[in-house]
């Protein structure tokens, strides 16, 4: 990780299009101003991680079709599959 020290009102430039300015420091809080093209999404890291994790969790969730099918089979209702139409038939 690149580590730089900046004072209030000093800036960083990321690439050609993004400028990050230290606007002020108040105790343990740093206020940053970010100039970036609007197509670039700027998010607090925590929120980015939350949404990313929620996407991963959704992808890891299988629609409970299989468990319903299994439950039906366990209940001895296999013939009903013929009426529903098994996807691999």
């Amino acid at each position, binding site marked *: 990780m690149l580590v730089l020290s900046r004072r209030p009102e000093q800036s960083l430039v990321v690439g050609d299009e993004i400028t990050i300015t230290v606007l002020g420091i108040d105790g343990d809080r740093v206020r940053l101003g970010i100039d970036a093209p609007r197509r670039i999404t700027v998010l*607090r890291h925590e929120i980015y991680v939350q*949404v990313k994790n*929620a*996407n*991963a969790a*959704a992808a890891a*969730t299988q*629609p*409970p079709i299989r468990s319903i099918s299994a439950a039906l089979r366990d209940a001895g209702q296999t013939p009903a599959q013929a009426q529903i139409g098994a996807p691999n038939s």
Partner: protein
Amino acid sequence: MSARATLTASIDLAQLDRESIITFPHGLVGQPHWKHFVLLSDEDEQAVGVLQSIDDNQLSLMVTNPLLVLPGYRVELSADEQASLGLEQSQPPVVLTTVSIRDGLITTNLVGPLIINPRSRVALQVVLAESAYTTNHPIGWLSSEQDSK
């Protein structure tokens, strides 16, 4: 700063043609390669659908209409977000939220809704960073009972 539009998720899954490709040009948040999906939904069941990736057949996302979860659910789109979706005033987008099930608890992500232009099928996951919504808003419990009577 910029003109913002507030919209309610007023359109159900029936507004999207089944099995036509939905494209997220930038992917989803943290998942830039999740770009092309088809929406699979039961004709009689407008509450839940599945976004099935056409790039990776192992990838699917269960989705719902967030208005069924929270009737007052609102999404604010910036002018840029509207522009990147190609939305016109007369064309409200389709709003879906992803569904997860963990240990039987069914939740939906109200912070990162999926916004779809129903005409072009261009889509965008927006992040409602300043909202009071959560990424794991509870919907209910997956019933483990096979016979409710």
